[in-house]
């Protein structure tokens, strides 16, 4: 077990001008479960591969424990990796797959068998040890890939979207199993996903990347409650945060015919760049108010989920210059008697507004 740190690490692919990972600075504590999340092409997998030694580091450095591994090959880094498509050796049995790394490390046959069996027991694979990957289900293959990582007892686990090939139900189930396994083993883990729900539920901390640049790295709670910029605000949370941009006026931000109230000093700082302010509010921070009070919206679609309901609405009097006004999502009590096409008025809870500078996209408190 060890700490991991990225120090100004960059990766520029040949024939590309923009770095895939741009001066990444990240400290990962011993035993921590850190999730790298972002949309596709944000550099999260590249960062992981740089840590694994499968991708060159063009500038900066990567340190595992107290060892600078920037130029070391993967086998000298004492890491184990779980690949998106599992990358099981097709001609080897489950036992051979899990024991391959131990065999290469020159560990005796008996000890290899013991360690593979232990890992198989943890992962409920004992009955499948003599099978080939071909004869396993997707979930079992995924567990073999996990097993191949844990038998080695490495300093760091690297996982590259290990759940993306599973069906939705199995994914939720395996998600909790991986998190529990990681807590039990206490091994530092870096986990890459594009799924923000996975990121929020599994990680001790979550690092959000976009275009190769780290946007914010913090606990799931802080990311949700205090997103550092408009991108993180829109990326974390499902359904996403409602974001509207409008002119700063006396008392708040003009959105359509209504004004969303923003405290004066916050408003002044947010509007400093170009007079426009982006405000965000989460679906659950919205109340239905009486006619004429707050934002007038028209309901487009009602989604009944049983435990709650989501109203997908748009501003009733949307002027053309309002960005992100296509959908304002509202969470309500289930079975609220609301129909498509109905006009409603929305109010936001006090203190629930997130305020961003519309130009720099940064959060203003």
């Amino acid at each position: 077990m060890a700490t991991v740190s990225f120090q100004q690490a960059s990766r520029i692919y040949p024939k590309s001008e923009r770095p895939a990972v741009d001066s990444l600075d990240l400290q990962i504590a011993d035993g921590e479960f850190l999730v790298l999340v972002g949309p596709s092409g944000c550099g999260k997998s590249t960062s992981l591969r740089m840590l694994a030694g499968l991708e060159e580091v063009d500038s900066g450095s990567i340190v595992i424990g107290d060892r600078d591994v920037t130029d070391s090959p993967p086998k000298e880094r004492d890491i184990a990796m779980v690949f998106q498509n599992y990358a099981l050796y097709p001609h080897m049995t489950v036992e051979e797959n899990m024991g391959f790394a131990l065999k290469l490390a020159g560990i005796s046959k008996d000890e290899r068998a013991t360690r593979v069996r232990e890992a198989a027991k943890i992962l409920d694979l004992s009955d499948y040890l003599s099978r080939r990957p071909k004869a396993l289900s997707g979930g079992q293959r995924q567990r073999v890939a996990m097993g191949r990582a844990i038998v080695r007892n490495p300093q760091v686990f690297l996982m590259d979207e290990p759940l993306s090939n599973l069906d939705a139900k199995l994914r939720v189930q395996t998600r909790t199993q991986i998190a529990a396994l990681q807590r039990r083993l206490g091994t530092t883990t870096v986990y890459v996903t594009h799924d923000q729900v996975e990121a929020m539920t599994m990680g001790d901390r979550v690092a959000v990347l976009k275009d190769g640049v780290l946007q914010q790295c913090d606990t799931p709670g802080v990311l949700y409650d205090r997103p550092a910029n408009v991108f993180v605000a829109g990326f974390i949370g499902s359904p996403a945060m409602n974001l509207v941009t409008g002119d700063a006026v006396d008392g708040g931000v003009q959105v359509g015919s209504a004004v969303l109230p923003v405290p004066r000093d916050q408003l002044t700082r947010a509007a400093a760049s170009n007079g426009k302010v982006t405000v965000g509010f989460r679906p659950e921070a919205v109340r239905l108010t009486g006619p004429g009070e707050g934002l007038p919206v028209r309901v487009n679609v009602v989604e009944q989920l049983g435990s709650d309901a989501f109203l997908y609405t748009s501003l009733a009097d949307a002027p053309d210059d309002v960005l992100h006004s296509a959908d304002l999502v509202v969470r309500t009590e289930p079975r609220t008697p609301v129909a498509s096409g109905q006009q409603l008025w929305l109010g936001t809870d006090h203190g629930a507004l997130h305020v961003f500078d519309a130009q720099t996209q940064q959060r203003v408190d």
Partner: protein
Amino acid sequence: MATLAIPATDTGRDTPPAAPATRRRGHRGGSKAGKPGPVTYTLLTLVALVSIFPLYWTLVAGSHTNAEIAATPPPFLPNASLFDNFRAALDQAPIGKAIINSVLVSGSITVGTVLFCTLAGFAFAKLQFRGKGLLLSLVIGTMMVPTQLAVIPLFMMIAELQWVNQLQAVILPTLVSAFGVFFMRQYLISALPNELLEAGRVDGASTFRIFWSIVVPVARPAMAVLAMLTFLTAWNEFFWPLIALTTANPTVQVALAGLGSGYVPQRSVIMAGTLLGTLPVLIVFTILGKQIVGGIMQGAVKG
């Protein structure tokens, strides 16, 4: 906006009954394609007959005398003179030695070609190194140079090495082939996922270990095909062995060339000798054919 929502739910309600119908239709089409009709069988039988006939004619002609073959109509059934003709052929040329020589030569060339082409194909397919594109085009470029052009310099080289009439003179020049390198490269590019190699590297394997423990098992079906092709080509090779070897130490094809020579070519002896020279290959592929095809199928399913 409200109208937008209504068709959406409508299509949603329509989808479930539609789905089984499509599946049924797909299944019927599939079973039709799976069962070939009488036309297919007739065609396949014809093709098989046409392919088998030359071999059968070798047997028939090899088991008659020259005069009997020349008769009208020609004989269509084998005859007991086959063994007399075998004896005549064995008297006229060292066919036994030639078969042993051919097995040695073709076997070494096959092992060498499969090993070296797999190594080079793997390097060209998956390793990153400077000048890779240029080297590959050079390798492919050699396919465009006719063998005949190389014969004189090659002969001068083996003469210098005093290898004339030695088996290594026919083995060494063909131990690796440009076609084989390209063939293995193409196969490995598609059949070997990069993640498998990366998993090997993370597991701590050296490049050679990755080749031996991961690449070779994955490449096995293509290696079998290459082995089959190479063995046949080497067995049938005539031009270069005729130059490099003598009739005292020949391969099968060189020995056959010395058969039935004289004022009137003895066709029946030539045919009997040809049959002797072909039998080992036939036996090998009758026995191994199933395994080779099996290997190909297994690889296809494993993907």
